[in-house]
C-alpha cells in the first residue's frame, strides 16, 4: 500500500501527466468538432443524397487520442525515471523492485480505466445528441457491449506503454513501438495479400473490441477470425506480455 501511495503521488505531481489527461479528455471535444462538420456536410448536401448519408462511429474515430496519450503516460511513468536517474532512488527504497512496477501498473491502468469509459461514453452521447436526427446512429443497447470493450483498450494501451517502457528503458524506443502498433502495423497488415491480411488483421488490437462482442466487422479494415474468448485473451496479452517481461527483467538488471 505504501508503494502504491508513492506511485500515485509520483504520477499526479508531474505536470505533463495533467496535460496528457487533458489531451485524452480533449477527444470528446474532437468528437463534437467532427459531429459539427458532419452536420454541416449533411445540411449542404442535396436532399437526394441525405437519405443514404453514413458516418463512422465517433468513438472509433477519436479513441486513438486517449489510447496514444495514455500509452505515452505509461511509457513515461518508467522511462522518465531511467532518464533522470530517479530509478535508482525508487529501487533503493523498494529493493524488491517488482512492487514499484506493479504499483505503477495499478496507477496507470486505473487512470486508463477511468479515462477510456469517460471518453467512449461521452463521445457516444455526442453522436446520439448531435447526429441522430441526420445519420443512422445505432441504439445504446446495441452498442453497449462494444462501447465497453473499446473503452477498455485505453487501459490496455496504458499498460502496454508501461510494459514497453520497463523492458526498453528508453522513451524513444517504447513510443516508436506503441505508435507502430496503433498506426503502422495495422496499415501494413491491411495491405497484405489474403489470407494474411485477414488473419493478422484479426489479432490487431483495434480488431479485438468488436471480436469480443461479436459485432459486425465487415466494414472494417480488420479481420474477424477470433472467437470472443480468444479475442478477450488476446486483449489481456497485449498488456500482460510486455508487463510480465518487464517484471521478469527488472529484478536482475544493474541500474
Amino acid at each position, binding site marked *: 500500500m505504501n508503494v502504491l501511495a508513492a506511485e500515485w503521488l509520483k504520477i499526479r*505531481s508531474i505536470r505533463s501527466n495533467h496535460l496528457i489527461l487533458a489531451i485524452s479528455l480533449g477527444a470528446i471535444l474532437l468528437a463534437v468538432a467532427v459531429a459539427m462538420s458532419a452536420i454541416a456536410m449533411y445540411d449542404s448536401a442535396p436532399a437526394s443524397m441525405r437519405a443514404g448519408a453514413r458516418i463512422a462511429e465517433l468513438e472509433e474515430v477519436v479513441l486513438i487520442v486517449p489510447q496514444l496519450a495514455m500509452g505515452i503516460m505509461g511509457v513515461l511513468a518508467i522511462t522518465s525515471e531511467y532518464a533522470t536517474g530517479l530509478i535508482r532512488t525508487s529501487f533503493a527504497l523498494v*529493493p524488491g523492485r517488482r512492487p514499484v512496477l506493479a504499483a505503477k501498473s495499478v496507477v496507470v491502468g486505473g487512470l486508463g480505466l477511468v479515462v477510456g469509459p469517460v471518453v467512449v461514453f461521452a463521445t457516444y452521447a455526442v453522436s446520439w445528441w448531435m447526429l441522430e436526427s441526420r445519420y443512422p446512429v445505432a441504439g445504446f443497447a446495441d452498442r453497449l457491449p462494444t462501447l465497453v470493450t473499446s473503452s477498455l483498450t485505453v487501459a490496455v494501451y496504458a499498460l502496454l506503454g508501461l510494459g514497453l517502457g520497463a523492458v526498453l528503458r528508453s522513451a524513444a524506443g517504447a513510443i516508436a513501438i506503441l505508435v507502430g502498433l496503433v498506426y503502422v502495423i495495422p496499415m501494413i497488415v491491411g495491405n497484405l495479400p489474403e489470407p494474411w491480411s485477414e488473419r493478422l488483421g484479426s489479432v490487431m488490437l483495434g480488431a479485438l473490441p468488436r471480436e469480443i462482442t461479436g459485432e459486425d466487422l465487415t466494414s472494417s479494415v480488420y479481420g474477424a477470425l477470433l472467437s470472443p474468448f480468444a479475442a478477450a485473451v488476446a486483449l489481456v496479452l497485449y498488456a500482460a506480455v510486455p508487463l510480465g517481461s518487464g517484471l521478469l527483467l527488472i529484478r536482475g538488471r544493474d541500474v
Partner: protein
Amino acid sequence: MCGAPAFPDREGVIEVKQLTKRYGRARAVDDLSFTVQPGHVTGFLGPNGAGKSTTMRLILGLDTPTSGEALVNGRRYATLGRPLHEVGALLDANALHPTRSAYNHLLWMARSNGIDPVRVAEVLEQVGLAGVARKKAGGFSLGMKQRLGIAAALLGDPGVLLFDEPVNGLDPDGVRWIRDLMRSLAAEGRTVLLSSHLMSEMALTADRIVIVGRGRLIVETSVKDLTERYDSLESAYLALTAGSVEYGAAR
C-alpha cells in the same frame, strides 16, 4: 516492525567483503574489502574512476556484484524491508524529476517507506530548503539539489548514511555546512560514509579514511595515522594513489 536488530554487534556497520564488479572486461571494483564503523565520518577517497560510486551502488543493491558481497547492519541491503529507516543515501543530486516540487519529491519517498509526512517538513527545514519546498526541483542550483538529496537521505532517520561526492557544486558556505552536518551525524552515533576525489575535503571532516584506486583498496586507516606518517594529507594521498590515477587516453 523492526524489533530487535538481527545482528546487534553489527548494527551500523558497513562490511564490504572481497567485492568485485566487472563491466565487460573492465573491473570497476576489484576484490575490495573494508569495514565502516558507526560514530565516525569515514572518507571514501580515490581518483575519478576509482570505483567509489560503483561500490556505493553495490552496497545499495542497485548493481549485482560479480563476486563478493556488501552487508549493512549484518544483512544484504536487498533484504531490508523499509530501507530508508536503516540506510540513507545520496548518489546523484541530479536524480530528480525536473517539474516535481521539492516537497513532493520527498513526500513520495516518505510514502513508499511508511514515513510520517511530518518528517518531510522537518528535513526540508534542516537542510534550509523550507522556503522553496513548493518550487520545482528542476530549477534548483546544484547546491540546492545536493541539499535536497541530503534531506532525502535523512528522511527515515537512518543509522547508516552514504553520500557520494555531496560537496560538488556547493559554495564555501555549503561546504562548511555539509562538513558540520556530517560530523554531527557521526557524533550522534551514526555511520557516515562520504566519498570524494579530493583529499582537501577530508582533512577537516573525516576521522577514518578508505582510499581506493582502480577498484582496489590502497589503504584503510585513520586520518591521524596518515598525518603522522606523511607531511600532509595531500602528499599522503598523492603518494598512495600515484599508480592509480587514470591519465586521459593513457588508460
